[in-house]
């Protein structure tokens, strides 16, 4: 890492789809020095170990597997003149902006005119979900499983149970199949699969029982998982013999850098609080990709990264409006989980994020109400499920609105 500069116009933290897209865009728009840092030995982010389709349609108009897609992103960025430095870990975000780093060679610091945070997401661990029982080997997230299987050809179990029915849970099934791992069941606490039909049929196609309304109570085993206890829809507990548990989904932004920094964190999303340009509470910092919200596709994050990259180029050229005053947008009630962006600056400049992104905590049906000072400014029908993409245009906020904007759901009577 001897060629890691002390200063760059833009430093980007995270070489996944969002970070690489932003970097490429910044170079294309003439920003001289763009440095992307990643703590892994290889750039490319999560798609590196998602060895399945479909990637790249939006970006490259080609149908690619994850690793090929990641390689394509890296090549495109490098061809645009982006400097990528791997095995560099950012340990602290400083005002300035500046970053404290650790590298294999020791401690470093780098300053920049602007910093973009693209640190992505991870799955919620077994611990954070307070799953009971003991702690044998063989309890892994999908991310860890894919790393072992695709990067290294290692097999942590043969007959695991998959906990969760999100898209990533089905991705875990495909990963298992890759090395001849045969899951014995798929367990979902809710009454329906989280991911959209027809993926719900997928496990049945593979001959894997899908157990809805089923709660994982306890994990058993010593060196390796030997079984799990579950409680089914009928309230009865049951033991399932298995040698592993794939704890999938429940993504959360990897926001530990943010949380120990001076930047504002949004409690709802767990990620950075931003305006419609992707600008953080310190306008030297921007954020894009899944750090903003759990969880979107690689293609979405790529598009978002490119748009925020454009906004950063505008900011460097003095073409963005000042960050204040801004209308602060907040969800109320318990139906809405998050809304991004959280601040809207009155401006004619084209936003990097043209639509609000929302998520709900549970299945919700009713009307989405946008109000300020008690007066409803806008309302629309909403019929939504958890973990599904919901967007509404920023134009639901009247031009020139300032002060707090409340967004909530008035649910239909059950």
């Amino acid at each position, binding site marked *: 890492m001897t060629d890691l500069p002390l200063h760059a116009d833009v430093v980007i933290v995270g070489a996944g789809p969002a970070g690489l897209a932003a970097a490429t865009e910044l170079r294309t728009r003439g920003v001289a020095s763009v440095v992307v840092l990643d703590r892994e030995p290889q750039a490319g982010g999560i798609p590196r170990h998602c060895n399945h389709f479909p990637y790249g349609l939006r970006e490259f108009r080609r149908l690619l597997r994850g690793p090929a897609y990641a390689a394509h992103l890296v090549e495109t960025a490098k061809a645009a003149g982006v400097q990528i430095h791997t095995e560099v870990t950012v340990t602290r975000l400083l005002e300035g902006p500046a970053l404290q780093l650790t590298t294999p060679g020791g401690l470093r610091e780098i300053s920049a005119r602007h910093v973009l945070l693209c640190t992505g997401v991870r799955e919620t661990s077994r611990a954070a979900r307070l799953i009971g029982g003991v702690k044998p*080997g063989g309890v892994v997230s999908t991310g860890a499983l894919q790393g072992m299987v695709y990067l290294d050809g290692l097999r942590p179990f043969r007959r695991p149970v998959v906990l969760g029915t999100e898209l990533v849970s089905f991705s875990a099934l495909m990963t298992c199949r890759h090395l001849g791992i045969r899951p014995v069941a798929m367990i979902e606490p809710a009454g329906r699969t989280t991911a959209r039909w027809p993926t719900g049929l997928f496990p049945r196609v593979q001959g894997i029982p899908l157990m809805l309304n089923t709660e994982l109570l306890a994990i058993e085993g010593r060196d390796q998982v030997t079984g799990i206890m579950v409680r089914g829809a009928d309230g009865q507990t049951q033991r399932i013999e298995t040698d592993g548990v794939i704890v999938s989904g429940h993504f959360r932004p990897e926001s530990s850098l943010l949380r120990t920094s001076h930047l504002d964190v949004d409690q709802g999303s767990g990620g950075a609080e931003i305006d419609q340009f992707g600008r953080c509470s310190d306008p030297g910092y921007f954020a894009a990709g899944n750090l903003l919200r759990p969880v979107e596709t690689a293609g979405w994050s790529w598009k978002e990264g490119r748009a925020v990259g454009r906004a950063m180029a505008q900011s460097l050229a003095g073409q963005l409006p000042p960050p204040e005053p801004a209308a602060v947008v907040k969800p109320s009630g318990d139906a809405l989980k998050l809304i991004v962006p959280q601040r809207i600056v009155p401006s004619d400049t084209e936003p990097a994020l043209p639509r609000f992104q929302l998520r709900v905590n549970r299945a919700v049906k009713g009307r989405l109400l946008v109000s300020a000072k008690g007066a409803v400014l806008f309302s629309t029908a909403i019929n939504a499920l958890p973990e599904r993409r919901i967007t509404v245009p920023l134009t639901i906020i009247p031009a020139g609105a300032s002060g707090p904007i409340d967004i909530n759901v008035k649910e239909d009577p059950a």
Partner: protein
Amino acid sequence: MPPDRINDRTLFDAVIIGGGVIGCAIARRLTLDGWRIILLEKAHDILDGASKGNSAILHTGFDAPPGSLEARCMAAGYAEYLEIHKKLGLPLIRSGALVLAWSDEEEARLPALMDQARENAVDNVSLLSAAETRKLEPGLSSAIKASFQVPGEYLIDPWSAPHAYLLQAIANQAVLLRDCKVTGGHFDNGQWRLDTSQGVVRGKIVINAAGLYADIVDDRLLGKHDFTIHPRKGQFIVYDKPAASLASHILLPVPSATTKGIVVCRTAFGNLLVGPTAEEQDDRQNAGLVPETLAALRQRGEEILPGLAHEDVTAIYAGLRPASEFKDYQIHARAGQNYVTVGGIRSTGLSSALGVARHVQALCEGFDQDRNPLADPIWPQVGNLVDDRDDKRPRDWQCPGNDGIVCHCELVTRREIESVLSDPLAPQSLAGLKRRTRVTMGRCQGFYCSAALAKLTHGRLKHPMVEGDSADRVGADKVGND
């Protein structure tokens, strides 16, 4: 590397059964006294029983029963830790503690507890009003009534300490045998002959430091036991590092008759923990986590520090205390049999271990064996797993040539892992590697680094992380066939 196989004619001066913090401390003490020691551990790695999960506090012993063996061992253990920790490279976080009263009844009990502290020679305690308490700890709930401060209660690294004790013993010629279960034995002609899962081990003296199995080992070797172990489970929640800013002191409750109660404190690794519970159970091996109990712990934590409501949980764990029917430690020397039982070390073992070791050493003098204290013992330094130490010792990630970070959440470097994998106490399992280096113990619990770690440890752990990855094929096919 220590021989994990020994010549069965070797006669050791003492055989220690059990590689918990107590066994490690005794191995160190007796080795420094010039004895040839062997330590037998039945698990893949040391610290796999009661010493696996605790609150990681170096207690002064202010609340121990005055005059008890426990109080004496804690005082001696505390003093020795302060004396030797720098020489072994061990951390000490001078946090101090507050004993918190949340009701008028609890407040009324504070003066008596302070008297008890003074009786235990912990003199510098001071009573604080609610306002004074919250001035020291602004994150505390406004429901606080009063507290008293115990400045000498410190935070330590619960695994590096025993590892350092045993590493020093090994560096000075002690032998460690793991995966070695004692199945029987007899004392004859001034010698013990122990049958183990790894063959015969001979020694002049046997020291039973088997923790949760102490009574069973006594039964096996003496044909009787003077106490019975009643495992007492303690569940804990560990919060992510940002939560550590919510409290600087160790926050202790007013204790009850059976337990010190729910503690909230930072950890040496920069997290914040809440726990333990105190739950009697029969199972000596499995400490099951119970979601409802963990949720209740979370709630209790939030009642004490309301800011915890917004903090993420990093880890959950449960430990088993080797409690007996007696309140005090059960340490007995058997004259004529060259045998010492070290049992019933419930919950204060980390603080008292070095003191217990001195006590055992004194008891062994009754067995009429010569001591030749080493004139110039080796003092190995353990790796540092603690950021922001008061002695300014850096972590490896802050040093050049660390070969890069493998575990991103805990900033564990490749060099640290490599170093541990090739040292005399090289772990045989992932659990052991975690305790030595903290890999996968952070917020992602292995999401990011499991694959890299499986690759790095490939063929180097006797009990591997993943199938088909065994140094000696043990367990390679343990998952059966489909």
